[in-house]
């Protein structure tokens, strides 16, 4: 092992690149290995051969156009919720509410789609639905942000509680006012539907992949630009790394928190379009159940970077679709277990790898003390609820 030498910039850069690669690639890989081992155990318990199951899983997802289309469809929603969670974590906030923000976004988009007269041109209808979804998710996301900024209320708890409140409210509205009888969904929207991939590429026949995927990719690029090339994005990351220091640097921490939660909600809300505009063309109770929580997994494995989020979304979409493909051999619930194992493994392995990497980095420059606070920055940002106690002087009247 070559110690990073600060007096030689060239080799320092190589070392830094190596360290950065180790830091970003090692934890997901270790986690995947752990998940594969647990998966093997479960498969063997069920009396099947792991090789058969994994082969079937791959054939059912990436091996044919329909399976691949379904992976794309599922990855679309997960990209949005993953981006939502990742943006929050970059600001040091935990958005557990993507679940209800997604539903609320989808619901408003469906309402607008219903309100427009049939035959409204797509150029008008689609942006209108898009704005509605952003508004629906944004409002639900902004509430915990504002409560955190004003009162220091833990955004973790508020978003969890809001999930139940918002879903119950939507459930009530749909059930009593606008459902199609005998179902739990609204009528089909009149305008704003997006084309499926089948329209252009017939081989995707039957799969739900649609143009929202392109919107997801564009959104990921926009988040990347926002986080790393704009001033508000810089402030957001500064607050996430060290709120006190950001405050001293002239950033209004409370405002950044409120804005970050708003944007996070908007991102999750846009995810609702995938189902409402792209797939079924109506809002249905529980259409995105689980996507919000999976978004946490996506953000973690994607290291809270937009590119990583897209890759991780494809990974978890593959697992989810693969579960259906192997259901004949082993219960599809196996993938739920594997998803949870991946999250726990990443959350556990990342701080350990970081400590090891940091120790090897400081060892060379005569600083024997490894950072003692390694656990606190475990997920690219403040993880604990203790941060809600940070005083925010200028956000109060």
């Amino acid at each position: 092992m070559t110690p990073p030498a600060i007096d030689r910039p060239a080799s320092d850069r190589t070392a830094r690149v190596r360290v950065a690669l180790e830091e970003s690639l090692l934890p997901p890989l270790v986690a995947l290995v752990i998940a594969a081992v647990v998966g093997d155990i479960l498969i063997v318990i069920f009396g099947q051969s792991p090789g058969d199951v994994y082969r079937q899983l791959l054939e059912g997802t990436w091996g044919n156009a329909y399976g691949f289309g379904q992976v794309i469809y599922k990855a679309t929603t997960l990209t949005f919720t993953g981006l939502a969670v990742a943006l929050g974590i970059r600001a040091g906030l935990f958005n557990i509410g993507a679940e209800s923000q997604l539903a609320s976004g989808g619901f408003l988009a469906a309402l607008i789609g219903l309100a427009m007269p049939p035959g409204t041109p797509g150029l008008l209808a689609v942006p209108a639905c898009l704005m509605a979804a952003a508004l629906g998710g944004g409002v639900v996301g902004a509430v915990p942000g504002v409560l955190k900024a004003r009162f220091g209320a833990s955004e973790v708890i508020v978003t969890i509680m809001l999930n139940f409140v918002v879903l119950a409210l939507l459930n009530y509205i749909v059930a009593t006012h606008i459902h199609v009888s005998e179902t739990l969904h609204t009528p089909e929207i009149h305008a704003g539907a997006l084309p499926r991939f089948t329209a252009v590429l017939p081989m995707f026949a039957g799969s739900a992949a649609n143009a929202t995927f392109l919107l997801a990719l564009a959104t990921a690029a926009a988040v990347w630009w926002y986080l790393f090339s704009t001033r508000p994005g810089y402030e957001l990351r500064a607050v996430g790394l060290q709120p006190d220091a950001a405050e001293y640097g002239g950033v209004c921490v409370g405002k950044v928190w409120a804005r970050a939660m708003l944007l996070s909600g908007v991102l999750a809300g846009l995810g609702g379009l995938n189902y409402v505009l792209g797939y079924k063309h109506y809002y249905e109770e529980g259409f995105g159940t689980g996507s919000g929580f999976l978004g946490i997994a996506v953000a973690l494995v994607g290291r809270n970077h937009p590119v990583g989020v897209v890759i991780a979304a494809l990974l978890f979409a593959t697992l989810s679709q693969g579960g259906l493909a192997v259901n004949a051999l082993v219960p599809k619930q196996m993938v739920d277990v594997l998803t949870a194992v991946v999250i726990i493994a990443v959350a556990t392995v990342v701080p350990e790898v970081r400590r090891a990497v940091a120790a090897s980095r400081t060892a060379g420059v005569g600083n024997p003390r490894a950072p003692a606070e390694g656990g606190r920055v475990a997920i690219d940002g403040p993880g604990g609820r203790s941060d809600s106690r940070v005083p925010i002087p200028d956000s109060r009247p």
Partner: protein
Amino acid sequence: MIAFLVQTLRIATPYLFAAAGGIISERAGIIALTLEGFMLTGAFCAALGSYYSGSPWVGILAGAAGGLVAALLHALATIRYRADQVVVGIAMNLLAVGVTRFFLRLAFDSSSNSPRIPGFGGGRGGSGVFSSLANPLVWLGILCMVAVGWLLYRTPFGLRVRAAGEKPEAALSVGVPVRRVRWLAVALSGASAALAGVYLALDQHQFTDGMTAGRGFIALAAVIFGKWDPKRVTIACLLFAAAETMQIRLQSLQLVPSQFVEMIPYVLTIVALAGVVGRAVQPAALGRAVD
């Protein structure tokens, strides 16, 4: 009136068990997002134990043991490896859902529910006053909460738990083994929350997929609304249960849509967290890892 009170107590029992576990975990500084998962694990293990032994008492033991194992996994990740408590907490809930479904298929070859198991009381929907009061778990639930209050405020261990949750560094400096205290607190919390699930499974005489239905989060809401104090949390649990009972009893009148009654615990908790007067303030070191 008596029927109303007894029904409230029945509905409150799982909340009391889970909230008792939530208090002890959070007072030690470990966020109790996992109550739901512990409950589900407990319910499933109780169904297994009760089904294969034929005795609900074995079910109770099996359920508590299941919750304990889940809690130890949680402690390993968050205390030993200092993983983020929120992330692992959410994942533990997903894990509980996945594992119970997987083994439901494996053990009972069903994707929705277990066969009928020996339990307490008159069976599904048996809401008779006598059969409810004859269920030992109802009394154990109250006892559990009383025990937590005694443990926290009347024993050296309780003092250490509170120190671990408020000022772990100070506790460490006077020789309190903070990590060990937290391990114990999480283990107790897992067993206690699992009993909440055990109660549900034995009361309904079967395990159904996802049968905890968010009750773990209502218990967490009660813990926060009750400001982490056993007496107030008990009142919160009873309050939430009374609202549900009222809703069930008045269902035919259609006074208030059920969805709005469902919201009560969550809305109250948000208000308590954001309240200007008498705001709920969590233990100072909640969520913070200790070296």
